[in-house]
C-alpha cells in the first residue's frame, strides 16, 4: 500500500536508443505489453467514487439499513495484491550485473587491442616518404617479391598460370546448366 503505482516513469526514448537493432522487435512487444498494463490501470479510478449515503438515507424507509451498509463498507479494507515477482526481477538484475561487468571488461579488452593496433598503424611512416625497402618490410604480402613469387609478364593476375575468370569459377562451383 505504501508504494502504490502513481504514474508511469519509464524513459522509453532513452530505452529505445539503447536497444540493439536485433532486439527491436522484442522491445516493441515489451512496450506494447507495458502499455496494456497501463491501460488496465487507467481503466479504473485511483479511488472509487463516493457512495451518496445521505441520498440513500432519504429514500430508504427502513431505519438502520443504510447505516449498517455504510459502517461495514467503510470498515472494510481491500487487501493490496501481494508482490511475488519483484524479488525475482531483483535477482535477475544482480545476475545480470555480473554478466554486464564481464561483458564490459571483455569489450574494454577489445577496445584496448584496437587502440594499440590503431597506434601501430598511425606510427607507420607515411607512404610518400617510404622507400621500396620499407614497403617490403612492412607489407611483405603486397610487395614485389620476384624471387619467392615470380610472375609472368605483364604481371597482371589474368596472365598467370591457373587463373580462372568469374565464369569459369561459377561453372566449377555450380556445375553449369
Amino acid at each position, binding site marked *: 500500500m505504501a508504494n502504490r503505482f502513481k504514474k508511469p516513469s519509464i*524513459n522509453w526514448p532513452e530505452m529505445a536508443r539503447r536497444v540493439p537493432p536485433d532486439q527491436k522487435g522484442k522491445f516493441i512487444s515489451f512496450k506494447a505489453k507495458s502499455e496494456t498494463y497501463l491501460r488496465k*490501470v487507467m*481503466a479504473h479510478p485511483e479511488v*472509487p467514487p463516493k457512495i451518496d449515503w445521505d441520498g440513500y438515507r432519504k429514500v430508504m424507509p427502513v431505519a438502520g439499513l443504510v447505516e449498517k451498509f455504510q459502517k461495514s463498507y467503510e470498515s472494510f479494507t481491500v487487501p493490496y495484491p501481494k508482490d511475488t515477482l519483484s524479488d525475482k526481477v531483483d535477482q535477475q538484475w544482480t545476475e545480470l550485473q555480473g554478466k554486464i561487468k564481464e561483458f564490459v571488461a571483455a569489450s574494454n579488452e577489445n577496445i584496448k587491442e584496437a587502440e594499440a593496433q590503431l597506434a601501430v598503424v598511425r606510427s607507420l*611512416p607515411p607512404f610518400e*616518404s617510404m*622507400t621500396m625497402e620499407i614497403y617490403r618490410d612492412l607489407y611483405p604480402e603486397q610487395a614485389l617479391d620476384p624471387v619467392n613469387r615470380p610472375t609472368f609478364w605483364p604481371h597482371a593476375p589474368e596472365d598467370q598460370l591457373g587463373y580462372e575468370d568469374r565464369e569459369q569459377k561459377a561453372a566449377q562451383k555450380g556445375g553449369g546448366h
Partner: protein
Amino acid sequence: MLPYLSIPKENILSRITHTNTCPVAKTQPKSSAAKPPATPALVRQERSGKCRLGFLPEEWFLFVHPFTGVSGPYILMIALANYGFSKEIIVCEHEYYGGLTWIVLIYLVTTRAGPKIGEILDQKVDAHENEFKKSRTEEEAIYLKTIENEKEAQMQAQGQELLMQAKKENIAMQLEAAYRERLMTVYNTVKGRMDYHVKLYAAESRIQQKYMIDWILDEVKEAITPEFQEQVMERYIQDLGALASKA
C-alpha cells in the same frame, strides 16, 4: 579476438631505420634492434635542390665560396671556357653548333611545356599515392569503428538497468490494476445491493398503494345500491333542468 590484425606489433620503428635488406641491419647485433634509435623518420624530398644557371647545384657554388668569393665560381667557369677554347679542347666544329641548338631547344621545351608535363605526371603520382593512403585510412577506420561499436555495445548492455526498472514498473502496474479492480468490485457490489434495497422498498410500497386504491374502489362500488343510483339520476335531471332555465 580481432582476426584482421595483420601487422606485427613489435618494434616497427627500429625496422624502418634499418630495413631487413639494409646491410647495416645485418652487421648490427640483434639486441640493439630492440631499441629504436632516436633519429627522426626518413622524409622524402618533394622537389629537387636549388640550382644556378638552370642546371648547376647550389652546393658547388657554396663549396668554392670560401676560396674564391661570391663571383669566383663564375670567373672560374669563364676562365675554364676560355682555356678550353684557346687550347682547342672545346672544338667549334658543326657538332658544337648542333649542341647549342639542342641547348636552346631543351631550354624552350622545359620552360614552356615543362610545368604542364610536370602537372600531369604529378597527378598520376598523387593518384597512386592516394590509393595507398586510402588503404591506410580504411584500416584506421576499421579500428575506429571497432572501438565505436564496442562502446555502443557497452552502452546498450548497461541499458538493461532501464529494462529492469521497466519490468518492476510493469509489475507495479499490474498490482495496481488488480487493486483498483478490487476496489471497484467492492464499490459496485455495495452500491448495487444498496440500489437493490432502495428499489425493492420502492416497488413494495408502490404495489401496496395500488392494491389499497383497488380495494377502496371495490368497497365503494359495492356500497352503491340501485335506490342510491335512482336518487342520483333524479338529481342529475333536476340539475339539467335548472341549467336549461338559466340559459
